[in-house]
């Protein structure tokens, strides 16, 4: 055990893991986080806390992580490279670890151009892969500069993201390999809205044996409307939405129910797919649907390990 988190235990013991996601509010109102925490408690092993997602200022992921701990949930702290240099990041990692947070997910971060402070300066002192490497070094007792820690090193289960839908396609697998090389333990993928492409990617992943080196959680996002699906297909870079999926939503009488149904079918499909260690459910602004999806997809109750 590297960190001994629920998530780590679940996956290392070979169980199909489930992670969720909670977006911290654009205020210091911790009740919002607590509300979601209460609603989602027990449905997932661990919950991602986004780090100023889409470059919009929000309650910090570590702050929200503390609220989750208080509510008895396990946080998965996201850290992006956009806003902090290696000094600040390492300090935050030590702080988070001291508070008992065991999962940290390393990301590049959305460019500030899309956020609410487009005139800010970005940092990108290190990139996500370098960040993984720094964290891996830290848990082994070394700072990024090579200096040895005199005291207790942080215990971290290191996560990363992978986007099978961005280009160049083959290189996406190489990039996952680099993340595994850097020391990532698990990886959550971009939400799958084109299963065919995802399967192709997994084939390449398996061909290189990567699934044995890094736990892969497939990203699941239930679609709320056809418009959203079309928008993602057309305007979100690095996002692919299959025509079948759009057609299904288009033909459905109850689009939301169909979206949930598709998500459930995807989970069932992923359960059977070789090399998939779990799912990561991102119900953006639709957190209340998570229990239903988990229930119907046979993910509840969560096993105890």
């Amino acid at each position, binding site marked *: 055990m590297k960190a001994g988190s629920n998530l780590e235990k679940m996956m290392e013991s070979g169980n199909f893991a489930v992670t969720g996601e909670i977006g911290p509010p654009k205020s210091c109102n911790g009740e919002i986080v607590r509300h979601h925490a209460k609603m989602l408690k027990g449905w997932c092993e661990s919950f991602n806390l986004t780090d100023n997602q889409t470059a919009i200022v929000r309650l910090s992921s570590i702050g929200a992580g503390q609220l989750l701990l208080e509510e008895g949930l396990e946080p998965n702290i996201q850290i992006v*490279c*956009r806003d902090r240099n*290696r000094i600040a990041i390492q300090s935050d990692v030590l702080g988070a670890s001291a508070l008992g947070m065991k999962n940290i997910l390393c990301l*590049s*971060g*959305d*460019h500030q*151009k*899309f956020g609410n402070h487009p005139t800010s300066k*970005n940092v*990108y*002192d*290190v*990139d*996500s*892969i*370098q960040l993984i*490497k*720094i964290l891996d070094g830290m848990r082994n007792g070394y700072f*990024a500069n090579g200096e040895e820690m005199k005291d207790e090193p942080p215990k971290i289960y290191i996560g990363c*993201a*992978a*986007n099978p839908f*961005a*280009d*160049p396609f083959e*290189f996406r697998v*190489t*990039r996952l*390999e*680099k993340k595994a*090389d*850097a020391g990532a333990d698990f990886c959550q993928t*971009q939400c799958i809205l084109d299963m065919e492409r995802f399967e192709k990617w997994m084939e390449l992943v398996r061909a290189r044996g990567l699934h044995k080196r890094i736990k892969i959680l497939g990203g699941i996002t239930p679609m709320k409307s056809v418009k959203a699906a079309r928008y993602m297909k057309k305007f979100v*870079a*690095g*996002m692919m939405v299959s025509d079948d999926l759009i057609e299904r939503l288009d033909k459905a009488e109850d689009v939301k129910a169909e979206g949930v149904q598709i998500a459930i079918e995807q989970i069932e499909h992923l359960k059977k797919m070789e090399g998939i260690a779990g799912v990561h459910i991102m119900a953006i602004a639709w957190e209340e649907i998570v229990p239903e999806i988990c229930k119907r997809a046979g993910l509840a109750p969560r096993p105890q390990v």
Partner: protein
Amino acid sequence: MIIAERKPIDEILGFLSQHQKVLVLGCGGCVTVCLAGGEKETGILSSELAMARSKEGRPLEVAQKTIERQCDFEYLEGIRHMVKDVDAILSLACGIGIQTCAEAFPDKFVWPGVNTKFLGVNLNVGEWAERCQACGQCVLDKTGGICPVARCSKSIFNGPCGGSQNGKCEVDPDTDCAWALIHDRLARLGQVESLREILPVKDWSYSRDGGPRKLVREDLELESGK
């Protein structure tokens, strides 16, 4: 090449509002090449300023001159007599030239006439693109001759990030994804395997982050320290 763009006229008129006589000073270096501050632009701006101030009823006497380069003190020496007669200098040189000018004429107002944009290449008449950030430690050997520091929106060293699609950057659909370019170029050269290597964190101390930089080549100096 340094790429610059003339400042909005209102800003310039604001700088000069207190003056009656100015020298519009062009530069024959980069800003001539990038069509921002050569002799022609100097002439046009001089005329524009004179007309704008005439219109306000507060005539401005405008002298104009374009010198070889404003980033060399010796060239600035040559216009000392002109500078003597004016209240202020409006420099159309890049940030370097403007500062050199200010240093050469400590008693004169020296106003910037252009915004220095970036170090770049001329793609087409009227179109320029950034290519270098002068980070002080070139990595082009590892990235197929395409700079991730200057050309990747996130300056990442192990790209492309998840926002790369169809070879374009998520930040702007008109901008090439630098890492897609790097990948394709190395693939063409049969070197794509080299991208498996994790490029280590960059030493930014060679960049501006290490404080204002200075280059001293003792082999070229006659007396050390001078």
